[in-house]
Every structure is written in C-alpha cells, then in structure tokens.
C-alpha cells in the first residue's frame, strides 16, 4: 500500500525541485549549515524561503492529516476534520480579534491565541455533539454553524478595519510562504508531540471504535479518551492555523485516501494519514509554486486545498455507506401542538404589519429618537418602504425554504445555509465581480442566481440517486459551501477594491434595494408560499421517511426535486439581498414549531411570518445599533440567530 504513495511523493519532490532549480542552479546552492552572511540574494531566497517552505508543507500536511484521522476515529465520523468541525474558523476568529483589538497579545506569538480560539470552537461543537450522542451529521452541522458564525464575526471586524484587510485575508487563505526556519522548528515540535500522543492513544481509540456502550463495557474511560484525542487533534490543527492560516480539507482528504489505500485498522490509519497529508499539501504547494513561477504568486496554497477538498467531499459522500449511522437525529423534546392555529397566525400577520408601520414611522436622529411628522414621512417613505418590503420578503422566503428543507430531510437542523445554495450564490456574485469590468446591479443579481442554481443542480444530482438518504444531501450542501468559501478566499486574496465589495456583500445589506427589486422579491416569497401550500401533503408525508412515502404512492424523486428547486430558488433570490448568512431559514421554522404550528400548511405560513418579522427586526437593529452608520443586515441577523441556535442545540433532550 505504501507503494501507491510513491508516485505522489515523486510528484511532490519534482514540483519542489523544479521551483528550486528555476530559482538557482544546483551548483550554486548554499552549503550547509546556512549562513546568511556568506549568501547572495538568490541563495537566501532558496535557503530561507523555498527550503523551509517545502518542509513546512510536509509538516503542516502531516499535522493536519493526523488531526483529521484522530477526529474521524474518535467521533466515528468519516467527514470530520478541523475545517468541518469549525476548529480552524475558531482559531481564525481568535487571531483576527487579537490582531485588531489587542495586538499586544500576539507579541508572544500567534500560538496561544489560535489555540484558545480553536479550543473554544471545538469545545462548543463537542458540547452540542454530546447532547446528541455525537451523531455525525449533527456534529458537522454544528461545526459548520460555529464555523460560519466565527467567520461572520471575523468578517465584520475585517470590514470595520479596512487597512488590515490585505494581510488578514492572505493569512486566512493559508499562505505557505516562509522567511526563515522558525515555522519548521515549531511545527516539527508540535508534530512530534502529536505523533507520540497518537501512538499512546491508538489502542484506546481502537476500543472506542466499538461505540460508547461497548467501550465502557470493556472498562475504558470513554470521556477521558475522547477528551485527550480531541485535545491533541485541536492542538495540531491550531498550530497549523497559527503558522499558516486556514488550510482546508487536508485533514479530511488524508484519512479518506489512506482508507481507500487499505488502511482499515486504526493504528494503520493513524500512521498512514500523516504521510498522505504531507504529500497532499506538498503537491498542492508545488502546484502553487509552478503557477507562481509563470505568473507570480496568485493565491495562497490553502485556497487550492479547498478547491480540491470540496469536490473530494462530494466524491466521498456516496461511499459513506453504512459508516454514517442513520436515524440518529431527533427533534428536541415534544413540541406543543395547537388545536386552532388560525388565531395565532392572524395575530402574527397583524403584528407584522403593525411592526412594519411603526418601523416606517420612527427612526433615530442625532441625539435621540423621533416620530416622523407627515412631511418627513412623505419624504422618507420612498426610501424606507423598499427596504422594509425587501427585508420582510427575504426573511419570509428563507423561512419557507428552511421549513421545506427541514420537513424534506426530517432533520431539524436543515436550512438554506446548510444546503449550499447560499455558498453557490456567493460564488456567482464573486464571479461577476471579477469577470465583468463594471458590473451592473442586474448582472450581479443574475450571477448570484446562476451560482445558486448551479449549487442546486449539484444537490439535485445527489437527490436523484435512488438510495441517497436526505441527510447525505445536507452533507453535500456542506461540501458545496466549503468549496464556495475556499474559492472566495482565493478570490479575495488578490486583495483589491473588488475583494472589499465582495466582503461587504457577504455580510448583507438592504440599503441599496430599489422598489422594483423589493417587489420582485416579495413576488418570489409569495410564489414560494403558494407552492409550499400546494405541496403540503408531500410535506406531511415526507418526514415519515422513504418507506412510508413510497408505500403511499408518493413520487419520491420528483417530489424531492420540486421541493429542493423551490427552496433553492427562494434562497438564491433572498441571498442577493441579505448575503449568504442569516440563520433565519433555520430559526423561523423552529420557532413556528415551538409555537405549536404542527400541520404543514400552518407550519410553513407561521415560519414565513416569523421569518419576515425577524428580518424586519434585524433590519431595524442594523440601521439603529450603529447610527449613523449602518451595520450589515445579514450579519446582524446571524448575530441574533447564532447564539439562539447554539442554545437550542445544547438544550437537553426529553
């Protein structure tokens, strides 16, 4: 099996050698030990740039491979890795915060800060997971929520501090450029520690692979082993984050490849994954060097690994047969059920209208609050009305999409964000910004919708597979989101005004909405609502699973396709306005269900009203909180939503 690594190893060395020889012929290479005083510039570039870079690639890849392998083994989850569990994003947020708010902290080095952030994120994800028996899909979704929230906050901070943008973005992308050998020394030490820990933990982890009950029966302290193994994995991932930034998916790909090479037993997997990881990152970095040799250093290596990792995750998903225990997701406790939902729905609708009216009438002025008089009302109305309509419609559309997806997948954590449509839409927006010289608003909208549709087609390809369980579709969506974020970070690493435009859009704003745009969005929401009501019988049957649905003669594949298409289009349209992240699609259906709206029609309608209300509130908050400056709408919504969701996921079950 190691023989199959040989071509990879040869490729990696050839790529590095090509770059090195391109820089300096072999005859002029500096003598060992390196002494900068006796070296000319190309020799220094080689000895303190390219050489440590090649070794750092190997070390970081090995660390990530080992980290991913340990996480996958300890969580018994074949798609766990530092990226999907939000660990890397946690480290990223901590570093961004420290850079902007307390740069003194970084004088001790980036390590403690990154480690604290990574540890916090991992702890949060594990806490959520522990409530739900570490169900793999729940873990990945929780990790993604934590990761997205961390990225959202980091983005907000970056936006507020434009001058730091460039260095932060490049750091985010995982650049492997080195100036000396300190990175090599640091990573080598961490990797040695990780390898020793992995060797000690190999046997307990093997026992743990029997499952919690089985391992406890054999006398294993399950909690301690889990904590130790995850701790080691977090340290490894945080070290790489601190040194290089976000290098996505190596931790996912390495164990997967190792497994496909026949590393079935846990000790073998732990031994082989670092090797594979080292080679993957080396090859990726070699490719980046190859491109850099031609046209200059275009993008960081971490972005390239993301580009490879997203498709890899998609490729892996159908092969997860049997390794993802199905049916481990449960809703949290029995939700109440209202016998007569009509009064509640009417009340929600009325309060929505009242809230909208009030929000038009009152506003903040320098030094206090004011209710508009008739004259200024007439002046403000054309400005305020479109954005209120647009915000409410976007909220309603996202909420309906979320309700549909939660019923379709029978998973209470499904939402448009998770489906990857938002990520696809973001890719479309970025594509237009970069490819069109002076993009018009219409071109941007079209690009965003096209991106969303593309992601949707990818997802639909999954759904059309006969035996594809709905929860796998969620994982496919996560893969698309990850791919999108990798592409975006690659695009933004260019670091000019266009990056700033994308960053601003990513966090969502309703200030630029025109009346026709707002009405179009309202029409989309209305169409979606009608469609969902028409499909309410499907929405009642589908949560009961494919067996019952098929037995009742429901056309399973077309029904899934239609519902995903509905949800996807609505998400794409709303994303244009509020950006790819808001959590409204996740929150509103939950709240509707908690309020006792159990029947599909009531559930969808209630979710739409609540979603519209939430988005109005977020819009109001975004306008008022930082008056006279405006905060991004989507960002504000996610800052309301994420803590609530995390609280919801951590509540004890019945």
């Amino acid at each position, binding site marked *: 099996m190691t023989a199959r690594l040989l071509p990879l190893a040869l490729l990696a060395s050839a790529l590095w050698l090509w770059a090195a020889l391109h820089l300096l012929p072999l005859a002029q290479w500096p003598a060992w030990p390196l002494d900068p005083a006796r070296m000319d510039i190309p020799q220094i570039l080689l000895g303190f740039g390219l050489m440590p870079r090649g070794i750092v690639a190997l070390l970081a890849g090995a660390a990530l491979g080992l980290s991913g392998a340990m996480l996958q083994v300890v969580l018994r989850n074949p798609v766990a890795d530092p990226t999907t569990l939000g660990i890397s994003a946690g480290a990223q947020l901590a570093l961004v915060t420290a850079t902007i708010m307390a740069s003194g902290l970084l004088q001790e080095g980036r390590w403690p800060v990154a480690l604290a952030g990574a540890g916090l994120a991992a702890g949060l994800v594990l806490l959520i997971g522990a409530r739900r028996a570490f169900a793999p899909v729940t873990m990945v979704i929780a990790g993604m929520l934590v990761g997205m929230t961390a990225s959202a906050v980091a983005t907000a901070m970056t936006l507020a501090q434009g001058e730091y943008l460039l260095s932060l973005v490049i750091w985010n992308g995982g650049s492997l450029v080195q100036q000396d050998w300190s990175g090599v020394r640091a990573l080598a030490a961490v990797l040695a520690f990780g390898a020793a820990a992995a060797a000690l933990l190999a046997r307990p982890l093997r026992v743990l692979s029997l499952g919690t009950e089985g391992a406890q029966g054999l006398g294993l302290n399950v909690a301690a082993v889990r904590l130790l193994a995850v701790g080691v994995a977090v340290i490894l991932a945080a070290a790489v984050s601190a040194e290089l930034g976000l290098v996505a998916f190596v931790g996912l790909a390495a164990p997967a490849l190792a497994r496909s090479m026949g590393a079935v037993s846990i000790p073998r997997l732990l031994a082989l994954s670092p090797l594979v990881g080292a080679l993957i990152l080396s090859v990726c970095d070699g490719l980046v060097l190859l491109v850099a040799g031609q046209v200059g250093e275009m993008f960081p290596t971490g972005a390239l690994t993301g580009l490879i990792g997203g498709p890899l995750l998609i490729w892996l998903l159908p092969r997860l047969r049997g390794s993802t225990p199905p049916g481990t997701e449960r809703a949290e406790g*029995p939700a109440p059920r209202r016998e007569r939902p009509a009064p509640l729905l009417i009340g929600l609708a009325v309060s929505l209208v009242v809230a909208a009216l009030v929000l038009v009438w009152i506003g903040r002025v320098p030094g206090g609050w004011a209710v508009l008089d008739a004259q200024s009302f007439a002046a403000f109305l054309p400005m305020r009305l479109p954005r209120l309509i647009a915000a409410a419609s976007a909220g309603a559309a996202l909420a309906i999409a979320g309700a549909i997806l939660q019923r379709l997948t029978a998973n209470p954590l499904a939402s448009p964000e998770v489906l990857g449509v938002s990520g696809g839409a973001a890719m479309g927006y970025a594509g237009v910004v970069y490819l069109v010289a002076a993009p018009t608003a219409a071109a941007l909208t079209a690009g965003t919708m096209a991106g969303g549709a593309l992601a949707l087609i990818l997802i639909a390809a999954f759904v059309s597979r006969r035996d594809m369980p709905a929860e796998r579709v969620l994982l496919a969506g996560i893969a698309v989101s990850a791919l999108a974020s990798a592409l975006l970070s690659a695009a933004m690493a260019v670091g000019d005004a266009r990056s700033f435009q994308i960053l601003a859009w990513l966090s969502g704003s309703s200030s630029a909405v025109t009346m026709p745009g707002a009405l179009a969005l309202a029409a989309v929401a209305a169409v979606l609502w009608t469609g969902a009501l028409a499909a309410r019988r499907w929405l*009642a049957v589908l949560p*009961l*699973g494919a067996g*019952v649905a*098929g*037995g*009742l*003669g429901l056309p399973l594949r077309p029904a899934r396709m239609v519902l995903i298409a509905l949800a996807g289009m609505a998400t794409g349209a709303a994303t244009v306005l509020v950006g790819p992240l808001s959590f409204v699609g996740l929150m509103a259906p939950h709240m509707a269900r908690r309020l006792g709206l159990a029947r599909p029609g009531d559930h969808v309608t209630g979710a739409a009203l609540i979603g519209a209300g939430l988005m109005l509130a977020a819009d109001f908050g975004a306008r008022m909180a930082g008056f006279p400056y405006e905060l991004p709408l989507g960002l504000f919504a996610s800052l309301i939503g994420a803590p609530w969701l995390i609280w919801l996921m951590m509540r004890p079950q019945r």
Partner: protein
Amino acid sequence: MSLFSITDLSVDVPDRRLLHGLTLDLPPGRMIALIGHNGSGKSTLLKVLARQMTASGGRVAFEGRALADWRARDYARRLAFLPQHPPAAEGMTVRELVALGRYPWHGALGRFGPDDHAAVARAMAECGVTPFADRLVDTLSGGERQRAWLAMMVAQEAGTLLLDEPISALDIAHQVEVLALVRRMCHEANRSAVIVLHEVNMAARFCDHVVALKAGCLALQGGPADLMRPDALQDIYGLPMQVLTRPDGSPVAIPA
C-alpha cells in the same frame, strides 16, 4: 389469478446476492407468513414486492401485471406497505396519520372529500383507534401506535397489505392483538396480507400460508401443517426442533 407471481427473481447489492433466482406464486385472499433465518432474504423479498427495492433480474407480477407497469398511485391503491420501523410521526394526530392513507386517492392537490372522510372513519373503527383519534401518535403505546399505522393502511382501501415484522417491538399480548387484527382484516374483508415474521409459532397460529426462505432461496411453501414438522423446521433454521401438540391439537415448535 395469483396475487404475486415471481419468476427467477434475484436481487444483488454490491458484493452480495440477497435472492438467488426465486420462483414463487403467492395465492390471493390469504394471510401469508414470510419466515426464515436472519439474512435469509425475507425482508428483501417484501421490499421488492412493495417496490421499495428494485430486482436485479427476473420478473415479478402483481395481479397479473408486471411491477414496473404500475403507476405509483395505482399501485398504492391496490397495495399498502408498512416498513419495519415506522417513524415517530412527531406532532401528528392519529386522525391525521390515518388520513395520509388517502394520498393514493386524492394525490397532492385533490380535494379531501366525503368519501375520504368516510374511509378514514371506517379504518379507525376497524382497527379500534377511534377513541384516541385526536391524540398525538408519539404519545401512544407501542400496540396502539401499530394499530394506528394499520388503520392508515386500511384507509388506503388496498386489497393487499405488506407488513415488515409488525410485531418485533411489541410485548406478547400486543403481538397477539396485532396479528389477530390483521387476521380479522384478511378474513372478514377478503384482503390478502404478506407478513415477515420471526416467531414461527405465531406464523403457524395466525397465518394460512407459509413461505420459508433460506439463504436467498425458497425452502418451503405450504400450510402451517407443512411447516410444523421437525424435519422442515430443521431444514429452515439449521437447528434440531421439536414439535409438541397442545391439548387443543395445535402444534408448538421449540428447539430440541
């Protein structure tokens, strides 16, 4: 005309063959038990009959028409299927669950008319779930819940019921209750039923016809009397079995 006529049916999953060229005719109007050891292919056969799984080779006809020629809703009007572990049906009342059985008749958009209401009421009465029609399904006991699901199948007004281990999660009193209900549904309303069962004595006591599978092949087909013989049972389960006779003359099998 036979209920199902199965010719040379084989089912493959990656690296394994679950059914090996099965040829079999199932008679209509009977309560048919499908028994066999774990992994014998009995659940696979039921899923093929319910069109939940596709065959890799061979032909299966239901009421004289090949399975692939049936439209999904037409098939559901003639045949109702209950999977092995019915889901929790969270937040749904019994009446709503039973009403889902009308889907093959009204479809996604059709009106839920007086016929549908009547069929739901009849189904709930037949399965004895009318008293808790407005309770939530996930608050019922195991036996009551299984009766609610049976009522959903009755509301489908299908002539044939396919049940995958309907009693595996129930205590012995509820096992007898559910099987007696299915037997009544078959004999009084002239329905056919195909039931995957683990418990050989339950199969012999309640069913009219027994099909036994062994390692993906047909091991035995016949009445309960053909099944309750030590040599037949040893052949099916690979274990010496003893058949005792109860005072009323009915046989009981135990491991020898």
